[in-house]
């Protein structure tokens, strides 16, 4: 077995075990080394490179083809940029978690069967949760636990789906599926949770803004794009995805207008960007899949760049609340320039990466004659300009002077943002080179008069609308507030309804529990007397652990049902 046959990402997960014990600067170098070593496996080419027989089935640990390759490349690139961006951080927690998380996401992309996918799927959840926990404090801890529960639920659904599928087909090979059976719906829903489908999206805007400065940048790259990859492999051409995606492009836009926390604005924006990719996957033609992959690739870079710039502001100023920022162009000019490059990329200005990626999706929709969807996405593009193109840079660096006198971002952050900016412009300027990496060969020219003039009209007149609304005093002011989102259903509604039921249940369980504990104590004391050694008493788990245990129990029941 050649070294390139090993699963990409494996070296990164292994390195994560030693990372905490390596001194600060050397640690970052080791991490970059592990990423480079892992990336070598991308050269293995298309095919099945590492298969492990388990219980009469096969775990396909390294499968590569035209779809895995672009995701493999961009995930490695994002991981390397994160190492540079976080270079100043001396504590090992985020580095360890981040490297293992990126490695797990990369390995997941190369899983050829649903069981291997499940393993890495869950690994991304349990590693990335530390990026939120590292923020410290009760608020971050609670957000982290909610995040973990949702992610684990997605994994449980994936495993249940795999079990049902195994029962139906006798195989857990991960390939194109058609919605219809219980198994495929379970898997679809599992992917949908991680891809932040409408009403399943609460975890994203809840958790991402609570992570650390570096943590949010890491989170923004992998989890949701892994789901995009999985949907592209499993459900390309599923028509349901077209409307789901269109809804995703539209709704978050309104939330982003009124959200005050700028990293949360970017999280809504991330959700909206995923919508574009999901519409393209739903269409499923070669051009559309190329568009989805191109958009995911470009999006990871410019979204990281935007989160990096807001991270730098948070690091220096101590807040990213729009109501408290403004006028930072003076003290953080380079961060401002990089932020604007990210903003222009996501808004799809010609010569920036978003333009050459989004053009593929819009053309694919146009070719299919889906006029309503096309118009929704076109309007959503004006919405993207509103929140990511204008709101983020305007309220941070311009707007009203927030009176902050801070230093420019640390040099390592500037380097990471600079490299990301080069990619944003490079892809925009040389699209043909960029298109080479996409799954299907194609002839496509994004730079013709119609595309460029049409897009510029859309963007410039939308910006003029902003000027008009500001000058007329109609633009809503930034207000410190909480904007309710889909997480409200499980943070407020469910406890309000289920609370009394649970309390009644718990009091019954409590009396039973008392009996159990009493008998356990009797048993233990009896055992102690017999053996003469001290033993641990019964442990009462916390609520998060209880929910997870119940989830796993349900899963076990489903698997028994499926296999039985």
């Amino acid at each position, binding site marked *: 077995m050649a070294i390139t046959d090993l699963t990409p990402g494996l070296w990164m997960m292994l390195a994560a075990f030693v990372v905490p014990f390596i001194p600060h600067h050397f640690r970052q170098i080791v991490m970059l080394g592990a990423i480079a070593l892992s990336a070598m496996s991308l050269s293995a080419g298309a095919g099945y490179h590492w298969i492990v027989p388990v219980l009469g089935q096969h775990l396909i640990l390294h499968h590569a083809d035209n779809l895995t390759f672009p995701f493999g490349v961009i995930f490695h690139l994002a991981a390397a940029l994160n190492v540079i961006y976080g270079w100043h951080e001396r504590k090992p927690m985020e580095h360890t978690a981040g490297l293992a998380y990126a490695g797990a996401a990369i390995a997941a992309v190369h899983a050829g069967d649903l069981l291997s996918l499940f393993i890495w799927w869950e690994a991304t959840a349990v590693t990335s949760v530390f990026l939120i926990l590292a923020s410290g404090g009760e608020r971050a801890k609670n957000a982290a636990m909610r995040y973990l529960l949702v992610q684990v639920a997605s994994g449980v659904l994936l495993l249940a789906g795999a079990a049902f599928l195994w029962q139906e087909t006798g195989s857990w090979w991960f390939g194109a599926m058609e919605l219809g059976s219980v198994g495929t719906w379970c898997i679809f829903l599992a992917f949908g949770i991680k891809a932040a489908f409408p009403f399943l999206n609460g975890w994203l805007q809840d958790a991402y803004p609570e992570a650390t400065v570096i943590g949010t940048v890491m989170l923004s790259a992998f989890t949701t794009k892994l789901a995009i990859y999985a949907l592209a492999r499993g459900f390309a051409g599923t028509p349901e995805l077209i409307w789901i995606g269109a809804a995703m492009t539209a709704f978050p836009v309104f939330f982003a*207008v009124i959200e005050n926390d700028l990293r949360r604005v970017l999280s809504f924006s991330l959700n909206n960007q995923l919508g574009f990719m999901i519409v393209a996957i739903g269409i499923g033609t070669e051009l559309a899949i190329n568009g989805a992959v191109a958009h995911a690739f470009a999006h990871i870079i410019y979204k990281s760049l935007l989160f990096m710039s807001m991270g730098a502001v948070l690091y220096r100023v101590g807040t990213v609340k729009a109501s408290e920022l403004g006028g930072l162009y003076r003290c953080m000019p380079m961060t401002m320039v990089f932020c604007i490059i990210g903003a222009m990329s996501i808004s799809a200005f010609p010569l920036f990466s978003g333009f050459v990626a989004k053009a593929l999706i819009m053309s694919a929709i146009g070719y299919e004659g889906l006029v309503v969807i096309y118009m929704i996405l076109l309007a959503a593009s004006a919405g993207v300009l*509103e929140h990511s193109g204008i709101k983020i840079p305007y309220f941070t660096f311009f707007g009203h002077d927030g009176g902050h006198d801070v230093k420019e971002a640390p040099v390592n952050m500037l380097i990471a943002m600079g490299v990301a900016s080069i990619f944003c412009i490079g892809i925009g300027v040389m699209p043909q080179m960029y298109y080479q990496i996409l799954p299907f060969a194609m002839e496509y020219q994004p730079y013709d008069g119609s595309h460029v003039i*049409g897009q510029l009209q859309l963007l410039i007149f939308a910006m003029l609308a902003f*000027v008009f609304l500001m000058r007329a005093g109609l633009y*809503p002011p930034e207000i410190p507030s909480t904007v309710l*989102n889909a997480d409200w259903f499980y943070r407020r509604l469910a406890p309000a309804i289920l609370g009394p039921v649970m309390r009644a249940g718990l009091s019954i369980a409590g009396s039973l529990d008392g009996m159990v504990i009493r008998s356990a104590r009797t048993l233990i004391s009896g055992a102690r007397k017999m053996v003469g050694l001290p033993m641990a008493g019964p442990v009462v788990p916390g609520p998060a652990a209880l929910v997870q245990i119940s989830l796993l129990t349900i899963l076990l029941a489903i698997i028994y049902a499926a296999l039985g």
Partner: protein
Amino acid sequence: MKKITETSIRLKEMGAWMTLILFGLGVLLIILEFIIHRHGETKLEDIPLFPAFYGFGAFVLVVFGGIILRKIIMRSEDYYGDN
């Protein structure tokens, strides 16, 4: 406080310049619309200046939509009580 005033003045100046540049670009794009033949992916887009009107309209709609949404779902910063 002097520093804040200076920055505020400069921000106002920059805003005025930016508005001027955007108006200039807008006029230029209107002129180009009638010089360069433009066609869209859909028939609707072939209407003269369609993207310009659509962009302006969609932006206003998004902002007004946000204002309405704010009335429904905006709560105090400490709504979940974990600040």
